[in-house]
């Protein structure tokens, strides 16, 4: 799916930038910890982890739009 490839490329670019700007950065997932570079490698192999990140990135996007709608409604005075 085209959209998924675009999102994955953006996530991998973000992690590459993170690796350069904060080499000590880590993601903790339960007992596991991953540096930005380890996470990039994992995302290329681990479909379950990618699906999880995609799922919550989508949820975050929906939240942002909902929050935006609320702000517009508040500012325009509509109920």
């Amino acid at each position: 799916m085209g959209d998924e490839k675009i999102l994955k490329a953006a996530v991998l670019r973000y992690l590459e930038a993170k690796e350069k700007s904060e080499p000590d950065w880590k993601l903790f997932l339960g007992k596991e910890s991953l540096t930005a570079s380890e996470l990039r490698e994992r995302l290329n192999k681990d479909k379950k982890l990618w699906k999880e990140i995609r799922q919550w990135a989508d949820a975050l996007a929906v939240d942002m739009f909902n929050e935006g709608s609320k702000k517009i409604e508040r500012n325009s005075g509509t109920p």
Partner: protein
Amino acid sequence: MNAILVRPSFDDATRYTFAFAEEILEWCRQAGIDVVELAEGEAVKSRVEEELKKGADLFIFYDHGDEDCLVGQDEQPVIDLTNCNWLAGKDVYTLACLSARKLGVEVWRQKGRYWGYNQVVGFTTDALPEFKQSFNCGFAYLFIERIPHGTALDKARETFDKLATALVSEGKIMAAIYMRKNRESLVDYNAHGPEESSSGGCLLGLLKLPFQYLSARIRRR
């Protein structure tokens, strides 16, 4: 109110969450909650059971867990399905992966109130103050501000949402993603029972019953 706070520290993740729990300890002391701390080497099953036998209203646990247990300093369960009767009727506040799935349900069945997570908990090192705030806020709502369970859960979820939005604006996108995920896996088995808060819901549970029955029959053969 009497409380027991258990906080092991034996790997990188627990060293962070050990520090997160420091705030809980301070809040307890400020609020006049009589708290027994079982940290590091004392965060083991024998000491936990010993303190629970003396009686406590509130059990607090910070770090690793699994579906059916909370894991101590020796990486063995301090509480699991075999000794969770000690938590019957008590308030339980946890930061531990997955433990709400089975352990939390069992404690709730025994009239306990269980605050915890039903998925693996994630956090990132670029947003430690924000994750600490998210993990601890429910405690403040429930036991310091004394807000009722249902409202406390709603307020905690709002806090997670606000933090996630703020993290996005700071460019901490992975932190925001896991803040969002943690928000979704946060449960409070008193505000809502396990059936209501599981993603499948009651109907899905009912649909699963014939399959569970069949698989049990097959296993018996």
